[in-house]
């Protein structure tokens, strides 16, 4: 449709309005909300006298600022303060306002609308601006008194009345609206729980890292936030009493706010036969499929898009008004940005921050102490997306660069620091900015280290990042100044900078040891928290750091940390070994290498039942069943469990096997019960997660038939007791163990073993086996911790046994019962109707 179509009909005698003597065309507006009124304002600004205007509103109010309902709920504003246009505005502009009387039908044939109270009014142009309807999830109890949405002043009144009585409220939906509602209700003294189905808050606007920050900030203010929370029903007798989740949890509440989303309000338009997709379809000047009917606001769909924020609506209103006054100004759905204050916290997102298309790069800045997170997504040296949390000052600058598609190659190094820094000479040479700092400028905020102090420590010989960290503490805590310290090193030493010890992976400047230390020092409790506080440069890490972080947290917080399945290598996720053809092999545990007819029969049955092509005895004296399909794993485990067998953890970075010889019970040389001791050790240690795989062996005499001196922990029995040795490895580079000590009793052998394992668990780097670890720290150190320090040994042992209390359940049994069932089931199956289509 072309804009010329909106010219007033000339040359007709017929009066424009059949119901009044006013010769002007009659514009009827359905909806007295933000877009409807703004459209009228735009029109008045262009040609005030051109149309006779009538506005119908369903609400009993004049035009108010819906965005400000949140401050009203929070008690920061009154209703009067959020009115945009008072009664006098309508009067002064000759607009007829009819409130509390929604339009119920449009008769296009006679060009008239009818309202609920029975008013029928003819129109020359009709503007539909009915906004959106809140989406109510169809759970039982959704209609109980005490369940409200958050959309208009009436909802706010209901919430205020409930809050006046106090008690608990549940907000379903952790998007913008839900969080605003929760914030307001919390300020009004209610005890608020937010239920959010996805794993992180505001997932549409924010990435996981920013969502985590938001969640943490809100929890600090006393709200309870449950993510991954799926509502099953709202219960109550005659009124709301609480919400029940699908996992059975119940949260008592006297008020339930549903804020899970909105849907364009299109019923009226659809019944009138207008073209409707998700919203009412409009062209570039907001004209619907009927040339005399237009639509603006959230109810309109332009070029496949509908909107839920005001910024694009304002552009719609401009195009609408230009069109109606005969000027071309086609609406172009533009990239949108969202700058929001959620419960008083600044967030910003723009463009495609999910960075699809190939060749996307992320630039991430995290400043944990200030609670700041910034992420820019670049493609071909252009910004295509941005997420800011905490400091959104540069949002509009980034958005501007994004919209103009400007090449930012020259700014790249300093882009993330914002406009002020980038244009302040830093852009030309990032080093110059640092060089220009005065000697007393603070470099490291955590430790209060000045530039002068860093320089003098470099002058005294600290020629690497690590050395600087050790000597003057700069960058040794949160690490946010690492870049600055590196620049100072580069300025002072040129090419003489020594490469620091290897960082954990490309996502961080920290080493494994730094990360482990900081997790404990700062009491960090989740992977996103570590990534935030330690300034990870990627949004969710990579396949190297995630499994390591998952292990470090698990080790630091036994019984508390919730394991992250998606950060585990496939073998640990599937509790089986992946083989080169994508099938799995399964190793049931045989304690100390012992078995019996029942177990052997169960294994034989499994092999036949699932057509396993091969069974093999492993180097650790267990039976390995090969060629099991992922889908069949739960059934295989159920069968093995039924015969009393549990997972052998042959797939994990964990205790694998305790190999034994027959020992004194049968062997003519045996001095002690090596088999029995092996079983006892395996019972104590099974199920424990480790930095790498861990193997143990017990031999009954120095002939050492169980090859105990190439294991991570080995016991060789002697007449006089037990010889304990550590750090052996039969891998690529064979290493024989170092002697740890001799002990007199079985119990001591067990105690030393537990203490040694815990030391390794707490201090080795992820994927570092005991052999390289001991070569790194020295056997003397291990002896000092385990043999010489009796109190320390006892403490290590106690920590190990404590954490074993949480890890010794059989992962197979849980899976066989259906935990994480979806990991094994296909999502869907596709059978083409005709197979020849495949050709």
């Amino acid at each position, binding site marked *: 449709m072309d804009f010329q179509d909106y010219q007033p009909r000339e040359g007709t005698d017929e009066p424009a309005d059949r119901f009044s003597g006013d010769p002007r065309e009659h514009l009827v507006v359905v909806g007295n909300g933000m877009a409807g009124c703004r459209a009228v304002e735009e029109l008045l600004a262009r040609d005030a006298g051109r149309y006779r205007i009538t506005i119908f509103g369903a609400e009993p109010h004049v035009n108010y600022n819906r965005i400000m309902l949140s401050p009203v709920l929070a008690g920061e504003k009154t209703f009067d303060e959020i009115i945009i246009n008072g009664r006098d505005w309508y009067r002064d502009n000759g607009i007829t306002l009819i409130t509390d009387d929604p339009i119920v039908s449009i008769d296009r044939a006679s060009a008239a609308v009818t309202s609920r109270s029975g008013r029928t009014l003819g129109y020359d142009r009709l503007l539909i601006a009915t906004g959106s309807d809140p989406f109510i999830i169809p759970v039982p109890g959704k209609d109980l008194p005490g369940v409200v949405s958050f959309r208009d002043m009436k909802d706010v009144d209901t919430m205020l009345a409930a809050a006046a009585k106090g008690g608990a409220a549940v907000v379903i939906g952790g998007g913008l609206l839900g969080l605003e509602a929760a914030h307001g209700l919390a300020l009004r003294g209610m005890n608020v729980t937010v239920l959010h189905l*996805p794993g992180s808050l505001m*997932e549409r606007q924010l990435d996981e890292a920013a969502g985590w920050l938001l969640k943490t900030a809100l929890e600090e203010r006393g709200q309870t936030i449950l993510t991954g929370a799926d509502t099953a029903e709202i219960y109550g007798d005659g009124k709301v009493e609480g919400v029940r989740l699908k996992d059975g949890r119940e949260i008592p509440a006297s008020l339930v706010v549903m804020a899970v989303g909105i849907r364009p309000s299109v019923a009226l338009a659809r019944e009138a036969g207008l073209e409707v997709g998700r919203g009412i379809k409009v062209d570039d000047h907001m004209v619907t499929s009927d040339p005399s009917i237009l639509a603006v606001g959230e109810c309109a769909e332009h070029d496949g898009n509908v909107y839920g924020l005001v910024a694009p609506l304002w552009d719609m209103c401009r195009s609408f008004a230009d069109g109606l006054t005969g000027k071309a100004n086609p609406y172009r759905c533009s990239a949108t940005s969202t700058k929001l204050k959620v419960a008083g916290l600044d967030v910003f997102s723009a463009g495609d921050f999910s960075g699809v298309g*190939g060749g996307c790069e992320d630039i991430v800045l995290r400043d944990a102490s200030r609670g700041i997170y910034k992420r820019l997504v670049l493609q071909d040296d252009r910004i295509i997306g941005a997420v800011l949390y905490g400091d959104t000052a540069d949002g509009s600058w980034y958005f501007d660069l994004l919209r103009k598609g400007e090449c930012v190659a020259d700014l790249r190094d300093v882009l993330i620091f914002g406009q002020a820094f980038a244009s302040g000479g830093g852009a030309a040479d990032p080093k110059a900015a640092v060089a220009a700092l005065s000697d007393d400028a603070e470099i490291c905020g955590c430790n209060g280290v000045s530039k002068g102090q860093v320089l003098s420590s470099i002058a005294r010989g600290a020629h690497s990042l690590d050395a600087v960290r050790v000597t003057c503490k700069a960058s040794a805590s949160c690490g946010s100044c690492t870049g600055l310290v590196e620049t100072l090193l580069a300025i002072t030493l040129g090419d003489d900078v020594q490469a620091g010890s290897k960082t954990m992976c490309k996502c961080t400047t920290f080493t494994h040891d730094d990360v482990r230390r900081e997790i404990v020092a700062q009491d960090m409790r989740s992977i996103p928290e570590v990534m935030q506080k330690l300034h990870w440069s990627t*949004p969710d890490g990579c*396949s190297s750091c*995630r499994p390591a972080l998952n292990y470090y947290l698990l080790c630091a917080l036994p019984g508390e940390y919730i394991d992250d399945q998606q*950060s585990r*290598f496939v073998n640990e996720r599937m509790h089986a070994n992946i083989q080169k053809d*994508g099938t799995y092999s399964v190793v049931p545990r045989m304690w100390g290498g012992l078995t019996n007819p029942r177990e052997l029969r169960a294994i034989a049955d499994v092999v036949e039942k699932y057509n396993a092509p091969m069974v093999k005895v492993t180097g650790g004296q267990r039976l390995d069943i090969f060629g099991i399909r992922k889908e069949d794993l739960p059934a295989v485990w159920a069968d093995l469990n039924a015969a009393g067998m549990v997972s052998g953890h042959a797939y994990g970075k964990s205790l694998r096997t305790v190999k034994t010889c027959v020992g004194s019970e049968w062997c003519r040389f045996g001095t002690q019960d090596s088999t029995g001791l092996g079983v006892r050790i395996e019972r104590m240690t099974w199920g424990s997660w480790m930095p790498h795989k861990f193997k143990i062996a017990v031999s009954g005499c120095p002939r050492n038939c169980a090859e105990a001196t190439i294991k991570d922990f080995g016991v060789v029995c002697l007449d006089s007791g037990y010889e304990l040795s550590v750090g052996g490895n039969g891998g690529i580079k064979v290493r024989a163990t170092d002697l740890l000590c001799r002990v007199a009793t079985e119990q001591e052998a067990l105690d030393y073993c537990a203490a040694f394992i815990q030391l390794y668990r707490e201090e080795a780097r992820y994927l570092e086996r005991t052999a390289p670890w001991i070569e790194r720290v020295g056997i003397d150190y291990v002896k000092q911790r385990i043999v010489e320090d009796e109190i320390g040994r006892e403490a290590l042992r106690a920590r190990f046994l404590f954490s074993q209390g949480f890890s010794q359940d059989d992962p197979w049994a849980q899976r066989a019962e259906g935990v994480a069932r979806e990991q094994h089931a296909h999502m869907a199956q596709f059978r083409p109707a005709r197979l020849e289509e495949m050709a």
Partner: protein
Amino acid sequence: MIGEWLDIGWVNEIPVRGSRTVPVEGGEEIAVFRTSDDRIFALVNRCPHKHGPLSQGIVHGHSVACPLHNWNIALATGEAQGEDKGCTPVIPVKIDGGRVLICRASTLKAAA
């Protein structure tokens, strides 16, 4: 009439930073991934290197690390990243009202 898009289920049925599979009769399995920012991607479930099942890899950012030898495959393009060279066919996906739809024609073609 068979639609151009195959409805394979709810977005929520795919774990975040995880994947699910869709076997195709007579052809190759499809792996459907969900990333931490809630985007959905689909690839043939086969690493260009030695045919590792990509669905079993660790999903990070918009890539998946093959479970067999740790090649990183870009979910959007199917291309191996870094020094490695190779490409896995990509299946167009769209989300409609929380349902995941994959392109029928590409599924058939990739599967053939």
